[in-house]
């Protein structure tokens, strides 16, 4: 009934095997081509670099700059910068032939490492050292304490805030100021010294902040510069800031009282005002020469009165 099919062919598996082989070859070819293309597309998945000592001649990773002996190099936390620059100016005014260079913020962490690498004479640190940093066995010289304030845009009607209200603000439980302006919380990046200062007193604050970071609830800025600009120009803005930076730079922002207690040397020292942080210098070894002179200067009476005038509390505390 089907003469065109050779019965031999029906019985013999040879042509069938050939067909299977053909299909297998096509599949293998397809898989091969796809695999080749994928490998070509993805490229290597091994790390395309090695870890270890960066070569001395690297143009990226410079070990040091030329530091003339009469110049003091300082770099570190942005919180230290306003006061340190003011002190540097005063130092240069009273010490002819001496120069102080205060670099833009590289953060407390950067300050520690720069000091450790001996790239600068002093690292500027605005938070307690971490365990890993303590292990570096650096010399740490605290020179000022600064109240951390809840700063608001000048348009905000409130003058005082309670701790509970502060928590409500950052948790988003309260959304408007008393005049109806929407509350805009400006957060610093995780690990910021002001946040750490508040968290040290209010453990709930840490959890609220973490949640806010995770939910991207608030705008996060990662420098004092960005924070002061945001607070100055954003209606209803609120954020943590240094009182000293506000006073010294005459910023158009308003520090709130906490539970009706204004930040002052007395209230901070008596711990009635809860939030503050210590500014310190770190160096690998006890300085000599110009850096040593600078260290002596900031412990002097002129520097301490300058600090007090600018809203800072000079350290070590008066006995």
């Amino acid at each position, binding site marked *: 009934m089907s003469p065109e099919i050779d019965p031999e062919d029906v*019985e013999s598996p040879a042509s069938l095997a050939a067909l299977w082989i053909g299909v297998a070859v096509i599949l293998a070819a397809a898989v091969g081509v796809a695999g080749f293309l994928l490998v070509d597309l993805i490229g290597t998945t091994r*790390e395309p670099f090695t870890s270890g000592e960066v070569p001395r001649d*690297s143009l990226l990773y410079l070990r040091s700059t030329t530091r003339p002996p009469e110049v003091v190099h300082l770099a570190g936390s942005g919180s230290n910068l306003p006061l340190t620059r003011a002190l540097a100016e005063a130092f240069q005014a009273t010490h002819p032939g001496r120069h102080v260079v205060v670099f833009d913020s590289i*953060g407390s*962490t950067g300050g520690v490492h720069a000091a450790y690498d001996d790239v600068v004479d002093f690292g500027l640190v605005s938070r307690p050292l971490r365990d890993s940093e303590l292990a570096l066995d650096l010399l740490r010289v605290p020179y000022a304490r600064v109240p951390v304030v809840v700063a608001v845009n000048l348009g905000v009607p409130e003058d005082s805030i309670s701790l509970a209200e502060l928590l409500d603000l950052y948790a988003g439980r309260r959304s408007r100021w008393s005049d109806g302006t929407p509350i805009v919380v400006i957060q610093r990046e995780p690990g910021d010294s002001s946040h750490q200062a508040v968290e040290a007193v209010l453990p709930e604050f840490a959890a609220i902040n973490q949640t806010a970071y995770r939910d991207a609830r608030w705008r996060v800025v990662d420098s004092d510069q960005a924070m002061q600009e945001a607070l100055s120009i954003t209606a209803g803005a609120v954020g943590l800031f240094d009182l000293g930076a506000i006073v010294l730079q005459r910023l158009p922002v308003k520090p709130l009282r906490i539970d009706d207690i204004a930040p002052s040397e007395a209230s901070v020292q008596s711990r009635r005002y809860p939030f503050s942080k210590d500014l310190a210098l770190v160096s690998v070894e006890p300085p000599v020469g110009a850096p040593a002179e600078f260290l002596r200067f900031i412990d002097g009476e002129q520097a301490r009165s300058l600090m007090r005038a600018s809203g800072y509390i000079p350290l070590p505390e008066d006995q």
Partner: protein
Amino acid sequence: MSRATGPSGHVRKDSVDLRRYLSARMLPLVVLLAVLVSLSAPLAYFVLTVRTLRTRAEATAVQVASAISREIQDRPVLWRYDAYKLLAHIRAFTEETSIARIEIVDRSGVRVPLDDQPLGRRTGAEPLMWESAPIEINEQVVGHAWTGVVLDEARAGALLLLIPFGALGLGLASLIYFIPGRAMARATRRIDQSQAALARFNQTLEQQVAERSSQLSAAYTQLQAKEERLRELSSRALLLQEAERRVIARELHDSAGQALTAIRINLQIIAQLAEAGARGSEKVAGLAARTLTIADATLEEIRRAVSMLGPAILDDVGLVAAIQRLCDDLGERADTIIDCELDAPPASGLSPALESACYRVIQEALTNVARHARATRVVVRLALAPRKIHLEVHDNGRGFDPSPTRPAGSVGGRGLVGMRERVELLGGTLRIDSAPDMGTHVIVDLPQVTLSEDGDDTAVVVA
């Protein structure tokens, strides 16, 4: 189709083979289809996603490289102490992407340790796809920014796509595999059924044909037998008739003829006596003479009746001489040259029926020649073979159209028809070849089935 007429088992095996054949050959193709359909879309998705990721990673790398380049130029040494912040900042803009690591690498290929803090989600053992952009300072490449991308987004998407497309591939493949198979099975079943029906039909047909043809041959044999019998009967009837005629003729000739002859002789004597005797007996002489005339007339009539009843001449001189006499008669009567070729012994040994048939046929043929042909030359032929008699009468006269389409008897008389009937009754054939101005050729063949060998007939003839 020769196989279709074979045993049905063979057909069934064949059809099953066809289905298996197709299924076996469809299977690899169907597998190929399933695999290709299942894999192509997820693969394409994977490739496109990977390309997108790669583009993003490259864009990020370029961004990082230019930012780092700027930083290095601003702060050649210190940049690296807060580069982690810069990278975190960039990461904030590439949030929700698959970029897992951003690394700055010196031109020597060594990673620059920027900070201990993790950048983005660092997934450790996960293999990453790396993309780079050169960091240039004053048109000199000092290092590279590398971005590492996790592929799990692409992989998860592709795996997710594999489910519907795998189902699609399998579904399509099984449709393509099973639908023709089922259709084939149905068609095969139907073909098998019709073949079985055909085989059954063939068988019964053969039976029917065999039955019919045996019936037909039986009927034919019967018919033949009947025809044979009929011919036999008619021959016998002819024979008997002929014999009877001859008997009657002989009786008439021998009894009435002899008697009348005697009466005539007596009447002659009476007349002679009356003339010689008394004058008064003139009346007797006249009467005798008148009676003589009546006797002559009666005798002539009887002779004519006798000759009509049967060719008594056959009994007297035999067939050959009788035919010779017919020829002679014609020759005398007309200006015709007659060639008489009679190839037979004087005593032909034929049955009376055959003899008189031969005689009558030649007689009629010659009569026709005399009456119609105006011939100058006539050939008469008689040949006696052991089982066959051949007769021919050939003239060169004006001929005629012997076409049988002419209505019988419409032109001529009964002569030709009678001739044919006479011959065919004896199982012979008669042929007339003639055309206008072409002469006429009468050919007769008669089988010499000698009924005379039959005892009964001999008896009849002798009687």
